[in-house]
């Protein structure tokens, strides 16, 4: 059976957590900063 190996789990965890962290960081900065565009 083709099972997820420990390396596979590490890769998927790293990939998912890094992009999720990047999204959360960016939107956190956007929401706490200047949400509206300067006129």
């Amino acid at each position, binding site marked *: *059976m*083709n*099972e*997820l*190996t420990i*390396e*596979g*789990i*590490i*890769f*998927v965890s*790293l*990939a*998912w957590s*890094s*992009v*999720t962290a*990047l*999204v959360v*960081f*960016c*939107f956190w*900065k*956007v929401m706490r*900063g*200047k*949400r*509206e*565009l*300067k*006129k």
Partner: protein
Amino acid sequence: MENREQWGSRIGLILAMAGNAVGLGNFLRFPVKAAQNGGGAFMIPYFVAFVLLAIPLMWIEWSIGRHGGKYKHGSLPGMFDSMWQHSISKYLGVFGLFVSTIIIIYYTYIESWTLGFSFFSITGEYFGIDDMTHMKSFLTSYQGAGEGHFTDIWPAYIFLLITMACNFYVLGKGITKGIEKFAKIAMPLLLFFGIFLTIWVFTIGTPDAANPENSVMSGFAFIWNPNFSELSNSKIWLEAAGQVFFTLSVGMGTLHAYASYLRKDNDIALSGLATASLNEFVEIVIGASIAIPIAVAFFGVDMTKVIAEAGSYDLGFVSMPIIFKQIPMGKIVGFMWFFLLFFAGITSSVAMAQPLISFLKEQFNFSHKKSTIIVGSLIFISVHLVVFFLKYGFLDEMDYWAGTFSLVIVALLEVIVFAWMFGMDNAWAELNHGSDIKIPRLFYYIIKYVTPIYLFFILIFWTIQEAVPTLLLDGVAEEAVPFRWLARGFLVAVFAALCYMVKIAWDRNGHKYDYRKETN
């Protein structure tokens, strides 16, 4: 000339930009490429390309766009002209106008298939089909490219008309009331559908207890278990770079067009990064978790490899419908899958029409309504070539030269104009102006040296490996050859027409452009 519109809110801007980037490739192309190129190991060159290519290009395009917007330029000819005052620069910018204009012609037709299949999911039109051969003929007969379930092209044509009407309704409303408002609805819905489908995939587990090796987890293993030996193969590095390139919609002139509607002091560094990261989230977390894992669960690894080799469309339009008919609530899940693709498509296609609309408004003083009608009419007329000559590879020819090869050319041109002709110090100042984050100085050197060299190698590789065989029509059936040449003639004619329009525009307006004076 009408006053230039501006984005209404930052979230609306980011969602519209992300909508532009998120397309069918996130859900269909990425999982196939990852599975074919070393699984988890693919993510190493993918992230390297993301840092060295994608993020710099995203920032470059936002910077060029905002800079051009200062001088009321919403398309690349004027933007390049404002950065590099040389007689040739505006003609180099024609590539950007050309790419987006050509892509939208065939992309709206592909997009309309997703709308059609959403409808067929709800009505259960394909639910009587049990095998992939018949499902394939269902698709090709719908496209008018073969015989099967549909006896004529009318169903596809009607969904094409609806798709075009949706696109140009949004575009006709303008930036704030049209594109931004639509992105604020479509992107949250797209994310909701995507997350729902991802969770649904996890609930499938092992659909057939008699075949325990066919499971969702085997699908994840297929995509993510790393094959490190692949890393020594240069192909995987170029495939990863190509995927990163396509997924972010760089090299199309569309990000520039959207960014031109920013004000001169608006941040671009954080907004650009937020756009890129949202696209990556949709691709890596959602896109990789739906089509391939579910295909492995129902068909097994070996069959999924065959499906993946046949291409992204077979994965999305042939294998997925077979699965939907086998599961509870398959009609609803099928509808969500195809409507997710439709949203991904339409948020991209509205962006593709924008550069030409902006160009007509700004260079010929047309009203927004008039520009939208002209662009809509031209695309509507041109799309008939794609519809009727699909089976002869008309779409493939356009997709290769405009939607693949020219993207790298535009990216290479823009990085040269931005970093070398405009000057890297000016470019760095432009990028950092109004920034809400501090960009590491390392990117100064990446943008100046690494990104253009990286792009140059991709261009050389693609020229040798793909462009030359495509140009020589290797493997093309004899009866398709005249239509391939017709497609090439069409591409050349569009490019020449755009160059001529640029010439007329600059002959009339060129004396007005004083790039020492900002106008917003």
